[in-house]
């Protein structure tokens, strides 16, 4: 229907539209009351920076168009990246932002999900008290959602990153695992591979032999015409990494159990720090952070004894959350997406700020999904 929009059959005309506008305004004023200034990023964004950040997979999820002058452009798939860019361009001091507008996502054939929907969001840039900032963003979202029948959930993708860092293995393996935190299947395969003695093809054994006897450069040069911009030196360097890898002892069962244990940690927010200390005593800094966050949430009026915590929650979403994450799900409406979600993305600000980052945490609400839920709730 021409008047329908995401999750609403009549939201583009008359009363339906008024309802959408009023809801967006209500959310925005909630964010502004919390000290946010409003921002309005462009709807058409340069594709290169988004692709560079999210990878080729984004092309399957975002709309791309081509401009003869500006080159490849994308219809805004989310607000976080342009908001971070604006913030970084402005000198990267502490700030809070509020925004609302459409995002566009390509959907698979047969999918019921909308390809255009509204987001209203709140982003907080500050580094002084991360725990308080996490709690503030969560509490702002909880407050504007009021007494709607939504179930919150929290997580922390920083824990698995910390667990990888604590492994007794080489830097190369740690980097490889960290790189695939957001791709669970590949992560699991890597972890299993590192846990058993390596096996090699005959060709690979020859290559490693050439590293061992110092003839590797010659061996690679003899193998075929060098072509392309990946140099013989890069090939030799990777062969050396492979040789070092061969000499690295497999991860112990305890190490694998540590990573899996952290990923599987499920309890309430109130129990999270204690649970982490129990399965991973060496992650005491992370546990202390969890305690600080739990206390900050409690101070913000959140009941942490009933707030669920799952360490790997949010792992399959866009790969920029690297700390606290949260979501609010409509319990009685499994057909709706999460009504609100968000998290911490410190590393993203470093990437977009060319190494100069500022700790950041934020969240979005889907106003149309929220209204659809309100419509069910007398």
């Amino acid at each position, binding site marked *: 229907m021409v008047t329908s929009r995401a999750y609403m059959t009549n939201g583009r005309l008359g009363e339906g539209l008024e309802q959408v506008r009023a809801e967006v305004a209500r959310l925005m004023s909630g964010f502004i009351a919390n000290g946010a200034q409003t921002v309005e990023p462009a709807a058409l964004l340069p594709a290169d920076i988004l*692709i*560079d950040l999210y*990878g*080729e*997979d984004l*092309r*399957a999820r975002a709309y791309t168009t081509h401009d003869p002058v500006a080159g490849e452009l994308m219809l805004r798939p989310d607000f976080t990246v342009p908001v971070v860019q604006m913030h970084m361009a402005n000198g990267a001091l502490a700030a809070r932002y509020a925004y609302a507008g459409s995002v566009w996502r390509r959907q*698979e*054939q*047969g999918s019921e999900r909308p390809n255009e929907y509204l987001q209203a969001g709140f982003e907080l840039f500050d580094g002084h008290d991360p725990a308080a900032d996490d709690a503030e963003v969560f509490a702002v979202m909880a407050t504007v959602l009021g007494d709607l029948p939504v179930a919150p959930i929290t997580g922390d993708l920083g824990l698995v990153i910390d667990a990888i860092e604590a492994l007794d293995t080489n830097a190369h393996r740690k*980097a*490889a695992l960290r*790189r*695939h935190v957001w*791709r669970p*299947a*590949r*992560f699991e*395969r890597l972890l299993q*591979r590192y846990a058993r003695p390596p096996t090699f*093809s005959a*060709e*690979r054994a020859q*290559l490693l032999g050439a590293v061992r006897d110092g003839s590797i450069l010659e*061996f*690679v*040069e003899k*193998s*075929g*015409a*060098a*072509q*392309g*911009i*990946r140099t*013989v030196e*890069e*090939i030799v*360097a*990777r*062969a050396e*990494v*492979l040789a070092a890898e061969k000499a690295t002892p497999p991860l112990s069962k305890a190490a694998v159990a540590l990573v899996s244990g952290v990923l599987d940690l499920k309890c309430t927010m109130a129990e999270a720090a204690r649970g982490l200390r129990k399965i991973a005593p060496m992650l005491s800094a992370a546990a202390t952070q969890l305690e600080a966050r739990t206390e900050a949430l409690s101070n913000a009026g959140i009941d942490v004894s009933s707030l669920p915590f799952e360490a790997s929650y949010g792992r399959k979403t866009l790969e920029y959350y690297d700390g606290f994450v949260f979501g609010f799900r409509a319990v009685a409406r499994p057909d709706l997406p999460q009504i609100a979600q968000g998290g911490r993305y410190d590393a993203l600000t470093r990437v977009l700020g060319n190494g100069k980052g500022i700790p950041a945490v934020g969240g979005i609400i889907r106003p149309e999904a929220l209204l659809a839920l309100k419509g069910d709730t007398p």
Partner: protein
Amino acid sequence: MSILKLGLPSKGRLQEQTIDWFAARGVIIERTGSGREYAGRVLGFEDIELVLLSAGEIPKELATGRIDLGVTGQDLVYEKIPGWKGKVVELAAMGFGQADLILAVPVNWLDVENIDDLDAVAAAFRAKHGFRLRIATKYHNLVREFLQGHGVADYQLVDSQGATEGVVKNLTAEAIADITSSGETLRANHLKTLHDGLILRSQATLYAGLDVCKHVGKKAILVQMLDTLGLAIPSELSR
């Protein structure tokens, strides 16, 4: 009177083999007019209209229902019709036009045998060169889906509509994903396939648009033709 439109490749070896395939099963397709004229007919089936098209156009024409049946490669259907199962059905794999869509890298990449290696090299390449490892292809959807399924990161696809094997030498990509039948062109261009880099094994296939049986007249013609060919009506069409 109803007309069933059958799309065939407009020229070349694929067309010859298609005509032979039908002939071997008792359906004679005749080219009419001069050899260069894109026209023909199916003997004994006055109500089948032959449409000669480039094999690359046939998937789209099938998906939109402008033709009812068509012969083309599975690679083209899977690449060009997102969610193809909801739009077309395979009536018969025809046993020719075999082509494998594969991932290939330079032969002197002795450190790369499989997708795990490619993924690791992509990370190192990006760190060193400041951009994602480029894979040239014209099969963007198939290749992206395959690499995403394997959890490969730090790559980008660059478009190459022809002579893809030459891109590495021309410095426009580091690896390729392309169709090969014998592998000769790959070898001549100093490329090798990855052990687990087979993305798709494709062959020429007779397809029907899913809507063809919604039309009683068309269905009758299709049933008659499939009967002559010795093929059953697939369940997707009889629903």
